């Protein structure tokens, strides 16, 4: 039985020039169309008409997070080689120049990619918390974390007198 297999690439756009400073949202947010076209152009350069045709048939940009610059790209299992060998050569996406694409994870299912990204983001939060030195920004991050976990009132809950 011949199976229909895919490969999901979890990519991160890294701006080497901005890496040390606090990451902020770009003025023009990234769109999946821009990502798709930049990838396709680069695959055309590296793998010619054959590569770009195989790529355009089977490739989709599945998920895009403009805040963390994370992208999920889905491509069929044969042509995934074309994408994989082209990723190191990508220097610009849309308006963002001088970037470097970091391949975080390559999975066969979107579910595993999601699991990976969830764990990766948890670790990144810890790293980010350590990096932020300004006390007000720390407070902001902590409150937004608590709000996300719906634990805003946990302090008051803990100080209530225990039931007799």
């Amino acid at each position: 039985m011949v199976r229909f297999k895919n490969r999901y690439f979890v990519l991160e756009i890294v701006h080497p020039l901005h890496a040390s400073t606090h990451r902020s949202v770009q003025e023009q947010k990234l769109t999946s169309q821009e990502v798709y076209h930049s990838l396709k152009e680069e695959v055309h350069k590296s793998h010619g008409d054959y590569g770009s045709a195989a790529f355009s048939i089977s490739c989709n940009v599945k998920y895009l997070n403009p805040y963390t610059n994370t992208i999920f790209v889905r491509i069929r299992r044969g042509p995934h080689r074309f994408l994989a060998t082209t990723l190191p050569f990508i220097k610009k996406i849309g308006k963002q120049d001088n970037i470097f694409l970091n391949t975080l994870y390559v999975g066969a299912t979107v579910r595993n990619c999601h699991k990976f990204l969830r764990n990766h983001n948890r670790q990144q939060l810890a790293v980010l918390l350590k990096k932020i030195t300004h006390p007000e920004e720390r407070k902001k991050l902590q409150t937004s974390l608590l709000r996300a976990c719906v634990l805003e009132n946990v302090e008051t809950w803990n100080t209530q007198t225990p039931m007799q």
Partner: protein
Amino acid sequence: MYERRVITKSEFHYMRVSLDVQNPAKALPVELTNVYFKQAVTAALTRLFGDIGGAMVAVDVLKYNEGDRSAILRVHSHNLVKLWSALTLTDRYMSRKCAFRVHQVSPYLMGLAVNSREYEHT
């Protein structure tokens, strides 16, 4: 007891090709020497398979005949399909319309020595 073993697997494939240009009487902008012929072949490969894909196919021009622009090419057997398809899909050489004609293909160089198509019966 005897055992018959036939080994047909050859590392290379050899092709006899020629480059047909439109209006052969009209001079080409650059005369097709052996170097330019090889460049035409590798340009065909990079056009179809890109910088990386075309570079992965190693083609050698073993013999080149400048008169009728024919050559013997050598390529690894697993790259034969790529080379042949790239030659088939070329349509121009330096802004002149052209076509690669494939006369013979064989896994052995000796196989190109005779050609029943072009054999002239006396």
